[in-house]
């Protein structure tokens, strides 16, 4: 685990040594604020001290920015050949995967925390129910982490960052829409509960209501663990090429 932290620190340093981290933060905050205040059903029109709209757009905002973050995680290492260095250091594949994941997650968590001032501002305008805010941030962190785990795995399959980005986006769109009403309405009856349980957004909505159900938590942790495991397995498998 200590090795993972060393790797995570290097990865974070790479984020902040290049413009990636800053662009990520600025784009995320600008877009989230824009949609929050000026969307058709935006904050000013609703006329209530609530962050509900913010957390409604959060899954979709993350959907577009997280793949931009994960696309380079492995693809860039493979392109530059540094993957060979990494894999010949005395570290287990899973430690490397965990390190990269932790670094990317730290950036996502930081971004979510930076949206807190928005909540304080809303709270200054009227009585804000903090339960959904805390729930929304926690849910956002879990959702973001799930996107990251999936995106990283996809990145490990290609050396082209654009390919990684697009495949991640398509895959994530699948995972946030598989349990949506239009899909469920057309799905075979026996399959519907299963599809709904697989949907990343369903669980987010539950947590963002301010109610933390252990089953939702368990779902996210399983999803994350599964793709991190696949990622490590892909690394090990690639040695057999």
């Amino acid at each position, binding site marked *: 685990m200590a090795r993972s932290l060393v790797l995570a620190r290097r990865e974070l340093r790479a984020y902040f*040594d290049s413009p990636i981290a800053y662009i990520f933060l600025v784009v995320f905050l600008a877009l989230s604020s824009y949609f929050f205040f000026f969307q058709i059903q935006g904050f000013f029109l609703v006329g209530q001290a609530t962050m509900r709209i913010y957390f409604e757009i959060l899954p979709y905002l993350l959907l577009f920015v997280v793949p931009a973050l994960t696309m380079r995680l492995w693809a860039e290492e493979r392109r530059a050949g*540094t993957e060979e*260095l990494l894999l010949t250091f005395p*570290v287990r594949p899973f430690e490397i995967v965990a390190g990269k994941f932790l670094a990317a997650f730290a950036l996502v968590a930081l971004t979510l925390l930076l949206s807190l001032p928005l909540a304080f501002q809303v709270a200054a305008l009227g009585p804000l129910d903090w339960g959904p805010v805390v729930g929304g941030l926690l849910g956002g962190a879990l959702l973001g982490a799930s996107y990251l785990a999936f995106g990283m795995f996809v990145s490990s399959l290609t050396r082209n960052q654009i390919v990684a980005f697009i495949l991640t986006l398509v895959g994530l769109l699948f995972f946030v829409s598989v349990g949506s009403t239009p899909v469920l309405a057309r799905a075979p009856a026996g399959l519907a509960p299963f599809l709904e349980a697989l949907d990343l957004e369903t669980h987010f909505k539950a947590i963002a209501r301010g109610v933390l159900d252990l089953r939702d938590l368990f779902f996210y942790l399983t999803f994350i663990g599964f793709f991190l495991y696949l990622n490590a397995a892909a690394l090990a498998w690639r*040695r057999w090429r």
Partner: protein
Amino acid sequence: MIRVQGLTKHYGPVVALEGVSFEIGRGEVVGFLGPNGAGKTTTMKILTGYLHPDRGGAEVAGHSVLREPLSVKRQIGYLPESTPLYAEMRVDHYLDFAGAVRGIAAAGRKGALDRVVGACALEGVMKKQVGELSRGYRQRVGLAQALLHDPPILILDEPTSGLDPNQIVEIRGLIARLGREKTILLSTHILPEVRETCRRVLIIHRGRIVADGTPDSLAAGQRDETTLYVTVRGAGAAGVLSGVPGVRRVEPLGTEDGRERLRLRVASDAPVEEAVFDAAVARGWKVLEMRRETATLEDVFRRLTTES
């Protein structure tokens, strides 16, 4: 220190290695030669745990590459082909990272860093980004990274490729110094380099080891016959010299101002020069030139790696 047994590796239909076996003892500096695509890099990637062989196995410092990859990786300093590095990192940050990931505690890292920075002469570029460095410096950063944990074994894949002649001399000197205490396997295309830095040569061709020995023994062991060029001033030299022990054939090359030029085919293990000299002196001739042509490592390499 390194024991390789029956390594076989295919990339799809392409055969990279076909039953490669060799052993390298402690403290040996071994040059790994072969044309591009012969299997040098693949062998090194298997030894460093980056690739799995299809068949066969390898042991490094007593640990199996397949079963104890982490123990093996701790014993090895590896410089991959074309020296991949994190271009956006500063040299000092990068080396500190490499030390930390190798498990050198923060307290010992400073000392380890100072040692390799001195050995690789990196003092002037520590605050620069790796991506800004010249090819020579990048190569030295790669070497420094491989030396940080003071490994007993170094595996260097073309450590001098892409360098200018001055840089090559520097890196070669560094490798020669390291070779006094470490076991080194290095691959190269540059044959004179092998003669200077390596005490032993392995030549690989189409995934098989085709030669193994010291540079001199490989060159000499090519055939049991070598060529001796002789120029003497004296009449009838060709007839007399064909009777000298060890001389198998005499081919006159021409006469000029009373100097007779001859090409002698002689047994490579016989001291023919002395006998020729004595024969000439006994008849009052003057020996103007006597030169034995030995097969060079280049000849050996070309002969072993061009025939199918």
